[in-house]
């Protein structure tokens, strides 16, 4: 052990109460930082998982058509200027096979599913409701969604084997008092067809669960009278964070609008980000208090240990040794506080994850959602390190500036 660290340890133990105060604040700051980040990130990650599982990472939708206009450069000139006026969208994807073939060339794409969507009226024995029917190829759609895991009643195999089977959103099924095996009618533009409930799914997103039902693509084409084309192609990717770049590239290449999940859910994601930032700032107050407590403790030690500083200086200890002795004290408190704080954060996060919290609306959960992310621990320790070490520099430098001659003469300022 270096002489400076040895001295720092002894100085620390001489001011036990003050040091315990600084240590407690550091532990609390680090621990709470980790817990709050784990919960805010947990809900955000759960939300992202839900929306990716329901609507995929990227939706390739309407075809884009550049509109150009040409006019002469001057009244008598033959020179024409071409002017881009904007983009015209043609609803839907007319050639889904060609688009899907092109999408499979993207290295990040893991699956595609063509979807035909239309507005319908659903009629049960009890009442009618407006709904949106999604025509899908079930096996393709399972590759781009969590539909298989979202089934709460019935099973997907029944749907696969039943040409007139349907998967109905839970809220919609509840409103119509539909159970697995019941039949219902779908009415679209005067055409009415009968279907049977193969399974009931629940995404947790209320807007989806109250409106959406899935049928097989051939049935959807018949019902919606759309022999070719689809409404959109749902795309799943390996690296979800690359969705904005991939969707921009898809838009350029495919000449169809392509929207990433980040763009689709921008407002929710911004809300989560703001929540995460605000909780981090709030909790950082604890680490700020830890820094102030450290400043106060070290300032007291400097005042009380001026004679010791003079002794050390008279024995050949340099100014930088004195600075180091005081910074070591802060570092020891920080190290113990960071380790203990991380343990408190770990235990706290686990405890919070067991707290019952039924949420249904933007996602469905019964307990607090937490994220087990090592970066939260790094961020918490870095925040505490910055606060505590910054607060320690002033008293450490003040101690180093003391003149030993002034101290032994009793005239130190």
């Amino acid at each position, binding site marked *: 052990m270096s002489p400076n660290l040895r*001295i720092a340890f002894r100085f620390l133990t001489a001011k036990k109460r003050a040091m315990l105060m600084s240590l407690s604040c550091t532990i609390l700051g680090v621990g709470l930082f980790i817990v709050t980040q784990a919960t805010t990130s947990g809900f955000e990650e759960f939300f992202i998982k839900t929306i990716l599982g329901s609507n995929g990472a990227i939706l390739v939708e309407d075809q884009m058509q550049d509109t150009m206009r040409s006019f002469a450069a001057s009244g008598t000139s033959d020179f024409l200027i071409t002017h881009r006026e904007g983009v015209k969208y043609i609803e839907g994807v007319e050639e889904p096979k060609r688009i899907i073939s092109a999408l499979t060339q993207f290295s990040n794409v893991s699956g595609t599913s063509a979807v035909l969507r239309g507005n319908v009226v659903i009629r049960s024995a009890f009442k009618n409701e407006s709904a949106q029917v999604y025509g899908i190829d079930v096996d393709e759609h399972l590759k781009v969604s969590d539909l298989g895991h979202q089934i709460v009643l019935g099973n997907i195999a029944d749907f696969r084997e039943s040409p007139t089977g349907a998967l109905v959103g839970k809220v919609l099924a509840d409103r119509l008092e539909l159970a697995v095996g019941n039949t219902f009618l779908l009415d679209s533009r005067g055409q009415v067809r009968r279907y049977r409930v193969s399974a009931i799914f629940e995404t947790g997103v209320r807007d989806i669960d109250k409106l959406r039902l899935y049928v097989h693509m051939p049935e959807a084409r018949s019902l919606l009278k759309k022999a070719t084309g689809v409404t959109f192609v749902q795309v799943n990717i390996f690296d979800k964070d690359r969705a904005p770049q991939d969707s921009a590239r898809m838009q350029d290449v495919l000449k169809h609008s392509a929207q990433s999940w980040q763009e689709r859910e921008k407002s929710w994601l911004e809300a989560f980000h703001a929540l995460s930032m605000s909780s981090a700032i709030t909790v950082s107050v604890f680490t700020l208090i830890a820094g102030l407590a450290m400043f106060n403790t070290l300032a007291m030690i400097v005042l009380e240990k001026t004679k010791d500083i003079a*002794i050390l200086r008279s024995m050949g200890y340099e100014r930088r040794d004195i600075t180091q002795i005081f910074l070591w004290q802060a570092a020891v408190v920080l190290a113990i506080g960071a380790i203990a704080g991380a343990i408190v954060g770990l235990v706290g996060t686990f405890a919070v994850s067991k707290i019952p919290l039924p949420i249904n609306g933007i996602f469905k959960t019964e307990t607090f959602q937490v994220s087990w992310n090592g970066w939260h621990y790094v961020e918490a320790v870095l925040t505490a390190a910055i606060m505590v070490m910054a607060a320690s520099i002033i008293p450490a430098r003040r101690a180093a500036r003391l003149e030993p*001659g002034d101290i032994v*003469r009793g005239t130190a300022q």
Partner: protein
Amino acid sequence: MLSPVATASSSANGTVLRCSSLQRYLGQGEGRVHVLKGVSFEAQRGQVYAIVGPSGCGKSTLLYLLGLLDQPDGGEIAINGQVMSNNDDAARTAARGANIGFVFQFHFLMLEFSALDNVMMPMRKLARLTPPEMTARANDLLSSVGLGDKTHRLGTQLSGGEQQRVAVARALANEPSIILADEPTGNLDVKNSTMVFDLLTRLAKDHRQAVVLVTHNPEIANRCDSVRPMRDGLFV
């Protein structure tokens, strides 16, 4: 002024400490006092010097200047032939650690540390010895001041006389060529005063170290090899 040739030759002759025309002012503005008014002094190996005089005459100020704890406003200080007074803080600190041992009036032990740790502290900084050698030397020094059985006692568990004896052992830890003592017996009873002074002078003479001590005690002063009375910032 000291010339390099003169200082080198004086070091070879046994002069370990030399100062010339030292000037020092203390205080600011109207309270500024001319404490040292051109003091010259030199100390030889194996000799014990007493600086005596009334309070405020500049004895302690001179001692702190000689110990490189303070910087003079004029004049020069040479340690073992090297002019140190105008050097930067790091060089003066290094010279202090290697060449000078201090004994202060109020013991100035680090009370959270044991007697052994206090004596080892200058050695740890200088790092000339290995840790086992440091421990052995510290134990020897504490035995030689009669505290061989109290090496692990904290400073707070030692009496005033014992603390001052630890301070003497600590001052000798790095085998400095100069021991500077500011009223080393000023806070002790007669018995302990005599014991501490005897220890200091015996050990210093054994190791051919120059001892410069400031004292108000005429009995102690009279037992030194040389007595230098001071008045109003000058030797008289």
